[in-house]
């Protein structure tokens, strides 16, 4: 895929993500903290989980963008591992439950609407990084994953993986809203 085409696609996904978060800001705190049972997440917990991921990945990407001496390339080719990670994040029709790493689990943390503002701030930051990524190679710049700093994936795949992970949990938020309606 052409690098610019990928960046356009990722910016558009980030725009839609930001708009969905803006709409969540209109909900009251009762809705935002409602949960189906003790072990499931509330809307704010989903967002806080995403914020924890953002706290990990966004600074990593920013540092790599600043220190990279690679040149932009017209074509981006997905890596084997990166492509697998990115695809595995996408929600399936029937929910495929995934394990959450303990340090990324926000269950029962004290949360308020500041979580949404932080999330939107991270999306603006992500757009900024996507724009900056035009100056480097989406193929040659490698980002360490949160699993292990020895496992790295291409910058282009990291963006897609990161955004797919957000989309996954925004779908979860839609399901929480539905469950609350039916409760």
């Amino acid at each position, binding site marked *: 895929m052409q690098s*610019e085409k990928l*960046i*356009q696609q990722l*910016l*558009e996904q*980030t*725009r839609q993500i*930001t*708009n969905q978060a*803006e*709409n969540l*800001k*209109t909900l009251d705190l009762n809705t935002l903290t409602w949960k189906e049972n003790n072990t499931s997440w509330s809307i704010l917990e989903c967002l806080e989980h995403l914020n924890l991921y953002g706290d990990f990945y966004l600074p990593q990407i920013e540092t790599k963008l600043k220190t990279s001496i690679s040149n932009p390339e017209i074509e981006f080719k997905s890596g084997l591992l990166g492509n697998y990670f990115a695809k595995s994040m996408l929600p399936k029709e029937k929910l495929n439950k995934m394990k959450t790493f303990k340090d990324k689990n926000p269950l029962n943390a004290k949360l308020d609407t500041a979580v949404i503002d932080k999330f939107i701030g991270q999306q*603006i930051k992500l*757009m*900024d990084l*996507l*724009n900056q990524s035009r100056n480097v190679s989406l193929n040659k710049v490698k980002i360490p994953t949160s699993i292990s700093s020895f496992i790295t994936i291409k910058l282009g795949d990291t963006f897609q993986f990161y955004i797919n992970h957000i989309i996954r949990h925004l779908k979860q938020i839609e399901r929480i809203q539905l469950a609350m309606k039916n409760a």
Partner: protein
Amino acid sequence: MKEIIALSDKTITINRNEFLKVKGSIDTNIYYVESGSLRIFVLDDYEEQTIRFGYKENIIVSLDSFLTEKPSDLFIQAIKKTVIKVITKQQIQKFLETESNRTLWTKILENLVIQQMEREIDILTNSPKERYERVLKRSPQLFQEIPNKHIANYLRMSPETLSRLKKS
């Protein structure tokens, strides 16, 4: 202008604070505002600077992207719930195949150039009072449609300065 609006076959609604366009995206559409209001702004080091507004019966466009078909730094965000008609560049190009339509189109573009010049003079005017008076004279309706904090940003002054100027 109604000839241009008639080209549209798509109407969309965007909620308050939702983004129609974000920094770095390519957007070659022209939008006609049926109701509500939007603002165009740029963001540098987390400081927003409002460039233009669109409200009822206005055209709003990321003009750089429309002309060049390249990424543009502009954000377009709804100030309140807004209904807009979408006119694509392809629709405009087809429209311009007719000679008489080109005259109309040139008029619209000329008008845009004049507006841009007025805006350039605004920004280069030193006195906040004069900046305020220029915009008030040119677009009195702006002050009915757009919240103070956004107008203050557009005029490059604090909301407090703007309220003081409005009272005097």
